């Protein structure tokens, strides 16, 4: 009999342990009005300064909780699957390569923020304002400045340059099936050479001894000659050179790398925020979206998230003014085209480059 009691108790305990709600220490609030709660779902690269968030929380007597839901694709999938019972009030982080998925799954409510007036039209990819642009980053070729100086070679200026014999065996790219910058670079080639011409370009790259790895970390920190690898040209971000200055081991005054920003050689990733359909906190959610588009938050973006503000009223740090090369004419593909052809392009790329 005792035996059974013990087991029953252990069953109950483990059930209780499994079902107990999260106990979180609530800060004791002395001011009478309860702060309003707002939940913001993001991808795992989201970051914000303490004082910037504090400014929002104080202004609106709000308490913001963040949920990080994996990388961009994973986060969008989670938001889509949870749309009947949203995980949050606001979702930030869907980019133009995944925008169609988010819009097709209709996870957002439209909101025409007054701050949109400040933002250039190029960034506004959803005319119904369900997804509002927040920041952008360009995926561009980076090269190792010292390598080209030492070998008396001029660095490539366009995508076409990469086919020249003098650049044979110099390039490492990421697999578009597994890497976000890899996919963006594939889109750059589709945008630049057209859906009929991009495969021929890749065929040429293969013949010019292209190297492919699966992830940005391996490309940049193992294969790129800047960090001791053998390839002096790598697919990375337009912003990587200034970050090499900011996060150098010892202070340096010239970036050791540079980005290739010739016409059509970069692909622009734009990230969006939207109010999740069915939120009970619509009013505060609108305030949060406005806040993300306002200069206070926009100026915080580069050093927290390594991407750049879409609001031209936001001032950039001096390092960026000095070292950030922004392409004048990045390659462009509409989110609808991307959604319709993503699989086809990746499969064709795989057949051409990896088989």
């Amino acid at each position: 009999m005792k035996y059974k009691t013990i087991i029953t108790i252990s069953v109950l305990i483990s059930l209780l342990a499994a079902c107990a709600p999260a106990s979180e220490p609530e800060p004791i609030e002395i001011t009478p009005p309860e702060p309003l709660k707002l939940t913001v779902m993001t991808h795992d690269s989201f970051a914000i300064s303490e004082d910037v968030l504090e400014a929002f929380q104080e202004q609106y007597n709000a308490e913001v909780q963040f949920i990080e839901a994996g990388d961009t694709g994973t986060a969008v999938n989670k938001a889509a699957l949870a749309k009947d019972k949203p995980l949050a009030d606001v979702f930030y982080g869907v980019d133009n390569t995944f925008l169609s998925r988010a819009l097709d799954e209709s996870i957002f409510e439209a909101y025409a923020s007054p701050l949109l007036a400040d933002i250039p039209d190029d960034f506004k990819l959803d005319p119904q304002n369900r997804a509002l642009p927040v920041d952008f980053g360009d995926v561009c070729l980076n090269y190792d400045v010292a390598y080209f100086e030492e070998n008396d070679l001029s660095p490539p200026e366009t995508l076409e340059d990469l086919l020249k014999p003098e650049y044979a065996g110099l390039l490492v790219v990421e697999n578009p099936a597994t890497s976000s910058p890899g996919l963006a670079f594939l889109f750059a080639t589709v945008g630049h050479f057209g859906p009929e011409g991009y495969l021929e370009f890749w065929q040429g790259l293969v013949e010019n001894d292209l190297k492919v790895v699966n992830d940005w970390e391996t490309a940049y920190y193992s294969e790129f000659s800047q960090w001791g690898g053998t390839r002096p040209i790598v697919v990375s971000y337009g912003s990587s050179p200034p970050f090499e200055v900011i996060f150098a081991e010892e202070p340096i005054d010239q970036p050791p790398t540079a980005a290739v920003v010739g016409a059509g050689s970069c692909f622009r990733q734009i990230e969006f925020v939207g109010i999740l359909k069915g939120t009970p906190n619509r009013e505060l959610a609108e305030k949060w979206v406005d806040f993300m588009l306002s200069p206070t938050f926009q100026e915080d973006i580069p050093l927290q998230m390594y991407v750049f503000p879409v609001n031209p009223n936001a001032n950039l740090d001096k390092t960026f003014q000095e070292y950030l090369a922004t392409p004048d004419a990045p390659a462009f593909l509409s989110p609808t085209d991307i959604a319709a052809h993503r699989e086809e392009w990746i499969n064709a790329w795989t057949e051409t480059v990896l088989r």
Partner: protein
Amino acid sequence: MQNKRSVTVLLWCAPLIFLAIFYFYPLGSILKLSLARSEAGALAPFVEAITSPSVHRVLGFTIWQAFLSTILTLLLGLPGAYLLARFDFRGKTLLRALTGVPFVMPTLVVAASFNALLGPHGWINVGLMEVFNLPEPPIQFLNSLPAILVAHVFYNTTIVLRMVGDFWSHLDPRLGKAAQVLGANRWQVLKNVTIPLLTPVITAAALLVFIFDFTSFGVILILGGPHFATLEVEIFYQTISLFNLPLAAVLSVLQLGCTLVMTILYTRLSAKTSRPISLQSSRHTQGRLLTWQQRIFAFGVIALLLIILITPLLALAGRSVTSFGVIDTREGSLAPGLTLAFYRELSINRQESLFYAPPTTAIGISLTYAAATVVLALILGLPAAWALAQDRTSRLNRVLDPLLMLPLGTSAVTLGLGFIIALAHPPLDLRTSPLLVPIAHTLVAFPFVVRSLTPALQSIQPSLRHAAAVLGASPRQVLRHIDLPLVGRALLVAATFAFTISIGEFGATSLLSRPEYPTVPMAIYRLLSRPGVLNYGQALALSTILMVFAISGMLAIERFRIADVGEF
């Protein structure tokens, strides 16, 4: 007899309820929803998968690499297990602790470790280039099949060492001696006495290793490179990149099916091979290294273990205190020079980021999750293992046993999405709860706990229990004075597995995380995915801290003994 069966049923309750809520229900929900999204009907994606040559290729490679990896892991692990089981030598505790460290390391760190050792600018390539004055790194290791195999051996050897080594250390060596007295030579003893006795635990370990390799993701992706894909990698690609949920669901089912088939085969095999034997205290089974053959053997095995399991980690630790010498990269090698800059930087919140966590905080969070996982996994795993050990042949056990292994064969992406749709309603609205992390870790640790405990529980002579019962011991007294002392050591092994799995887990954690509670692997990932050498260096430094911390954890567990538990 009736009584025994009801005990078995009762024992199963807690583990089954847990699995039902946190495994079968979310998994079933996501599979159902995924297949319902198929426009051509739920059957169409199955047909698509079955007829697709690329799926065949992926499945073939998945099985092939898992098979090779398991064989290699056994080749290294079994001599190691023998050494640890039969000999007592100085530094043995440290060796045991060290060999457990790879298991804790997140894949990203392991990739960085192999890169630091064998990458284009790894220590070995740089060394060879300097000595022989070569223009190019001579060794191309990353992104190859050997890289996958070596990484799998690196990870999983500890499973064989711990499970087989521990069981072996309690086998009575007099059985073999008796056979020798009767005229058997050493090989005959091995073949006819030792191996048959070890078969249950070797197959249990091999099965776990195989399933781990079979569902391998990070190793294949990062170290294997773009020319290799396992089912798990393909599921990830179909789910995340293409949002082709129906095909992803079919691939998940395929992966689960394979896991189930292997587990059923294992269950059949082990039901035939396991038998009660009298276990001895390791005090009586271990001797010193006396002959020179024994010493050479020990030296060889230890050297191999250290080279394969420890040098990559040392390379990483070395890199974390080496200046990268940005400007001098061109001088032929990375300008060497010791620095603690990366460690100093770890404790500075330079960007005043909200989610910044100093290393001590991240370690504290990792420890809390790990402790919760150990408790949960033991509470659930012990009754399940016990039920299994009661009567292997009962129909209930035969059905339930293979099900326990399924969480290991489940794609983390699939299950992660399952949580989102299944655990959405009170009282189970746990989607954003930090509790979900130890729960997910427990799902992975649970099969290890059960597999570590069952062989020990099974080998208890029923006559011991009967004798105690006849002499008037209550079932609780039998448990306290017979079962517990006899399985104490296995309990420790189980706890170690649960602890290390939780500390190193990254995949599930990253799907369910709350940014204000970052674990160490998540903090490392954050640093690693950013440009700038200061970030990379910090990632290496934090990985090294995780490593030191893991070694201390293992040593602490090695020394952990409660009264008569753990030694007998």
